[in-house]
């Protein structure tokens, strides 16, 4: 039990790092992803093009490569960024592309009559998107959006490769422990992730039931 007592603080720190990383990156991803989705359906061609380019690039780039560019690449253009903020930015930028795609499928699922009615009563593009389409789109994409964010929590593990001492990094860090202790670490890490993902999945289900639109 000595092993557990000695490393309890380390474990708690790692867990809180993962949690903080997930919350901040999730925020970045949601805000940027919504903006990108709005750009992709906007009437202005260069905005559409820019958003499409962003999504296609990030969807086809490994997250590890995104980390590379943020952590080792940005200093080349004189933006030095710490490891933790770099991780938040990497995970957030990467996830935003998927949030955008999930939202866009939701926007497409809103029946055309809604948008037509919004236009008919004289709402502008911005108004009809804000007041009519996006609120419904968000409701239909609760499950896929939730899954994207849950997958994001698991993706924060990649920060372990870039000097962020979050949950997964405990395994290489405590690698000198004996077999039993290291197994315990693995169990702890897995449980740590589940403590975040399972309640999130539950919350997603709850929210889905509460906001579902009957069509």
């Amino acid at each position, binding site marked *: 039990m000595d092993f557990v007592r000695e490393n309890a603080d380390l474990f708690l720190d790692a867990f809180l790092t993962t949690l903080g990383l997930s919350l901040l990156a999730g925020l970045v991803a949601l805000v940027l992803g919504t903006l990108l989705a709005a750009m992709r359906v906007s009437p202005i061609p260069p905005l559409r093009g820019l958003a499409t380019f962003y999504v296609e690039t990030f969807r086809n780039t490994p997250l590890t490569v995104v980390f590379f560019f943020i952590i080792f690449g940005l200093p080349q253009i004189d933006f030095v960024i710490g490891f933790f903020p770099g991780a938040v930015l990497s995970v957030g930028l990467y996830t935003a592309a998927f949030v955008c795609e999930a939202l866009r499928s939701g926007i497409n699922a809103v029946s055309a009559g809604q948008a037509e009615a919004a236009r008919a009563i004289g709402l502008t593009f911005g108004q009809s998107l804000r007041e009519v*389409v996006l609120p419904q789109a968000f409701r239909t994409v609760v499950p896929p959006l939730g899954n*994207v964010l849950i997958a994001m929590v698991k993706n924060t593990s990649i920060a372990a490769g870039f000097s962020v001492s979050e949950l997964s990094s405990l395994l290489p860090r405590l690698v000198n422990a004996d077999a039993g202790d290291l197994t315990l670490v693995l169990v702890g890490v897995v449980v740590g992730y589940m403590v975040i993902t399972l309640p999130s999945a539950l919350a997603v289900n709850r929210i889905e039931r509460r906001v579902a639109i009957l069509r």
Partner: protein
Amino acid sequence: MTTPVLFDLPGPKARRRIRIGTAVGVLVVVAIIALVLARLAGNGQLEAQRWAVLFDPASQVPQALGQALLRTLQVAIVGMVLATVLGLLLAVGRLSEHRWVRVLVSTLIEFFRAVPLLVLIFALYFLLPKFGIRLSAFWALVGGLVLYNSAVLAEIFRAGILSVDRGQREAAYGLGMRKTQVMTLVLLPQAIRRMLPVLIAQLVVLLKDTSLGFIISFPELLRGARSLVEFFTLQFGNQYTFQLYVAAAVVYIVINLLLSWLARYVERRTRTSQKAAATTPTELPADVQMGGGGGAVPAAR
């Protein structure tokens, strides 16, 4: 965007506004690009000589990157083949008539989908040696990829098998086939044909995930670029750093775009040949596309 429902076909005023918006948008994009280029040029990153090293065989860079790419592809191909085989077995297992097989297989699938891929790889790489099983970085990486991807593929295959028309199975039983025959001769061939585009899309995810090898120091493309950078930095200072990273990223993006394109092409082909294919999922859910162990957490009900 054939019929925009969110905005009217623009009239003269709106067209002018859109033109202004377009001009502003283009300006903003150009300004961002110019800023980045200026910063890069200010640091001398755009000098032709720095980029020439990527294409100059005498510098050994193209060879080293090529070998690193080969190792990446090797991991991806071995991983994909093994994951497909294991995924098929798991899918059939989950549809088994025996309850204990179903429960066991479902638990395995849900577990491997719920754990981050990197944790699986770490477990194989750091934990197994403690129990006397020493895996090379290659097999730890492949192993992790296979465990996770087979779980995802199992769900895809299961959906595919279930999407085959019920009459097919009933007819096969009616002909007197045994259940193994029904599965291998009737259901699987049809399911796999339909699942082909999704399989290719999953290959894109798997290829992206091979970059996790970087973290356990397997010399795949990204680690290869990093080693080159370290080597050059020792000799000439960090003048080639940025170029090598860009090269690695471009290779990933190009390969993945080609594969995504292939997936769409195959999808079009199968869709025209089989009307029924339209009822089966032809795109991976966004969270699976994210890789890194993404995929739904078992829905709590």
